[in-house]
């Protein structure tokens, strides 16, 4: 077990293994996303109340789901960074923060587009919307702090502290729906409960979520590889790799 632990800490080992499974992540993710999207957009039944406008759910929910889940993954990696000083963990945080930011923005944007026909407004200061906005700010803060500190090691540890402090917000974000007096629109869909929608709707949704997870995995790998190459550029294996690529 400890051997795996040590291997996980080695950027070189990760570079090799990730190169091998990255194509699978990409192909699997794109296939699942395509299946989910085509099924959801073209074949899933129309909603009796919202008509076709509900179909944006096949983008909105996966993006929102990933946005929160990425933050939790970042927090786990931050613990690893602080406790074991594992290089890969801090590279992961650095690599995925912009992905999380983009997905949070996508969730907010598609939510606004969806909100216009169904709620009659682009934006309301509803607990769920506001909490996603806070998440967007948190991602922004993480990226800003990382860019502001020039030394890689200090940046990684400072960012890890910030990410962990931000985790306090996650339960608050989750329960703000109940705590905050507002004209709250109840959640349309929850994965934890038996979905209130027919299988023809939620199966493609699940496919899209899984597909996006795989694509995210691919993105995380390629961004981490870039980070590894830039940080380890003075080591021999990176030099050899680059020379091989040239010839």
């Amino acid at each position, binding site marked *: 077990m400890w051997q795996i632990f040590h291997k996980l800490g080695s950027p070189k080992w990760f570079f090799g293994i990730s190169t091998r499974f990255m194509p699978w992540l990409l192909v699997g993710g794109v296939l699942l996303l395509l299946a989910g999207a085509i099924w959801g957009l073209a074949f899933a039944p129309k909603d009796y109340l919202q008509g076709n406008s509900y179909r944006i759910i096949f983008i909105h929910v996966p993006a929102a789901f990933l946005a929160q889940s990425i933050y939790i993954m970042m927090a786990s990696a931050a613990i690893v960074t*602080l406790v074991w000083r594992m290089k890969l963990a801090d590279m992961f945080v650095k690599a995925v923060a912009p992905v999380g930011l983009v997905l949070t923005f996508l969730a907010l944007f598609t939510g606004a587009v969806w909100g216009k026909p169904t709620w009659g407004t682009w934006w309301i200061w509803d607990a769920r919307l*506001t909490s996603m906005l*806070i998440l967007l*700010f*948190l991602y*922004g*803060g993480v990226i*800003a*702090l990382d860019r*502001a*500190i020039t*030394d890689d090691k*200090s940046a990684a*540890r*400072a960012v890890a*502290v*910030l990410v*962990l*402090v*931000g985790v*306090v*917000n996650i339960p*608050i974000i989750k329960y*703000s729906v109940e*705590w*905050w*007096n507002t004209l709250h629109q109840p959640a349309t869909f929850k994965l934890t409960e038996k979905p209130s929608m027919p299988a023809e709707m939620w199966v493609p949704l699940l496919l899209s979520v899984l597909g996006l997870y795989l694509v995210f995995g691919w993105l995380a790998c390629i961004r981490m590889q870039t980070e590894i190459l830039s940080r380890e550029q003075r080591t021999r294996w990176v030099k050899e790799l680059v020379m091989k690529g040239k010839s």
Partner: protein
Amino acid sequence: MNAEAYPTAGLASSSVSALAAMKGVFARDMKVAFRQKQDLLNPLLFFIMVVTLFPLGVSPEVSFLSEAGAGILWVAALLSVLLSLDHLFRHDFDDGTLEQLVLQPQPLFLLILAKTLAHWMLTGLPLVLLTPILGVMVHLDGNSIAVLCLTLLIGTPILSLIGAIGAALTLGLRSAGVLLSLLIIPLYIPVLIFGTGTVAAATEGAPVGAYLALMGAFLMLALTLAPFAAAAALRISLSNG
């Protein structure tokens, strides 16, 4: 300017109890602050001016102000605490006292707790004391003002404690001020929501006990966890330089 040494610095041993060290840090920070009185006044003046902007900029109507007043005061208080955070470690960092503090044998988080407490006494508490006057100026009724003061009394220490983490993280960075705001405001939002929510409930005549208890729980959480995070952040920032 700032050369008041930490009382524990000369002793450099663990013979000084942690509590005595905390008292020493607290007393020293208060003394240094009162030697630069303008720095104490600035956040308060800022607080008053921000509150003034709303009636002039949005609407001086009594109906608007009595409804939005609590929120305005909370936002203004939040911003003035944010503004004052830069001072929390900056001077000590510049003249090297902070490094001495980190080198003390007493646990760093306790010393940071003492520093944060001093910071709150110098910025948060005066804001709370000013609130009744400004509350009358924005046409809040007596009950709302009392509840508002209470929420600020519980809320401003939370702001100082969370702020200490941000101040420690951004220590010694370029454009630290803006960065500090970017990092800290998302963490302040829940405190703001509950602070203003409590006052809104009080204005409607609803019982506020549960709200206040929740804010108290926030304070306990911040009091117990924030100094650890701030201490970790401080060590990172100092090893950076």
